[in-house]
């Protein structure tokens, strides 16, 4: 089971998925966003926690050729992320359900794209991020963080936006601001999103979704649309057989290949029901 479900899932509700547990979207969650002792909970995640490290240390370790340091930093970063600053990839269908549970929802400028490519998103047409939960109501206090303001949406509008982003090819990620408080519903792609890039390059950052993609060889015609949409480099076209090939061990279960397939040849399977993948979250 994923760490978040263990901590915050309710087996009775939403198949035990933590993000479909309405309690986690309750208003009082916001106050807990900086985890206090009670909420730090799981000893597993706290083990090896170290606050003064960053991705820069990983890069230094490569430069220094120090495998030991690299591994230490990598593990510590993974532990830190688990505790509060982490997140999880979700497929389109599940994210629609989350949008029904959470309020308020507001479009905003993406923090990552601003930092990585200096992209300024000034209007709702440009905005590629969604802030979630009551914290959003205080946005006006921090205009620098919410450059261009916040555009609050109703559930239907939010879903429509979500589908539009999916069509464009963005990966949906739940960003935690102190688990289980979901602060952001991100739309990510490789290089421009900090989270995906950390996860792909170093195995640090948001964990994989509860699903993995699988190709139905009978339906797949090798058109290659799916290969364009994979941001994790885990989908290739196997030319010999003219079918899509998915490495399920590196698949993040974002479902972009599924939603992009015109033949309906890709399905999402429940990760926890596949023995070899049940514990593959990074």
């Amino acid at each position, binding site marked *: 089971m994923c760490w978040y479900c263990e901590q915050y899932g309710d087996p009775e509700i939403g198949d035990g998925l933590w993000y479909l547990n309405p309690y986690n979207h309750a208003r009082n969650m916001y106050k807990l966003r900086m985890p206090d002792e009670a909420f730090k909970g799981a000893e597993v995640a706290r083990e090896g926690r170290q606050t003064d490290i960053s991705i820069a240390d990983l890069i230094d370790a490569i430069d220094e050729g120090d495998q030991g340091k690299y591994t230490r930093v*990598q*593990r510590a970063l*993974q532990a830190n992320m688990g505790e509060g600053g982490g997140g999880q990839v979700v497929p389109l269908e599940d994210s629609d359900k989350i949008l029904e549970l959470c309020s308020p929802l507001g479009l905003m400028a993406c923090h990552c794209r601003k930092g990585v490519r200096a992209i300024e998103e000034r209007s709702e047409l440009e905005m590629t991020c969604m802030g979630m939960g009551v914290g959003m109501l205080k946005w006006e206090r921090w205009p620098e963080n919410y450059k261009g303001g916040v555009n609050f949406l109703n559930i239907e509008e939010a879903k429509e936006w979500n589908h539009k982003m999916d069509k464009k090819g963005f990966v949906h990620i739940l960003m935690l601001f102190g688990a289980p408080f979901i602060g952001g519903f991100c739309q990510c792609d490789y290089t421009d999103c900090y989270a995906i890039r950390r996860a792909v390059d170093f*195995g640090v950052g948001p964990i994989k979704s509860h699903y*993995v993609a*699988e*190709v139905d*060889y009978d339906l797949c015609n090798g058109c290659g649309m799916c290969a364009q949409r994979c941001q994790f480099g885990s989908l290739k076209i196997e030319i010999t*057989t003219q079918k899509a*090939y*998915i*490495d*399920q*061990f590196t698949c993040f279960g974002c479902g972009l290949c599924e939603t992009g397939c015109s033949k309906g040849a890709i399905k999402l399977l429940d990760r926890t029901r*596949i*023995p*070899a*993948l049940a*514990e*593959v*979250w*990074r």
Partner: protein
Amino acid sequence: MVSARKFPKITIDQERCTVPFLCKKCLQICPTAIFSVHGVKEERLKELDPRIDGSYVLSAQRLDKCTVCNRCLDVCPVDAIKIQVP
């Protein structure tokens, strides 16, 4: 880290699986291509006949990529494959 896990154990009953290069069902259905087929004894001036028992042997090499989807079990006409989940 990928995760802490034991790989599945795949055993192939060579008594039953006698003509893998002729049958080739598991080799072509496997989504992660973990199987491999080899001629048992390549001889000078001789081509091996896939129809002759034991001229080829099937092996499962890339256990790390097996997701236990069990498709090979479904297609195997002689039930020669066993997957043991650790």
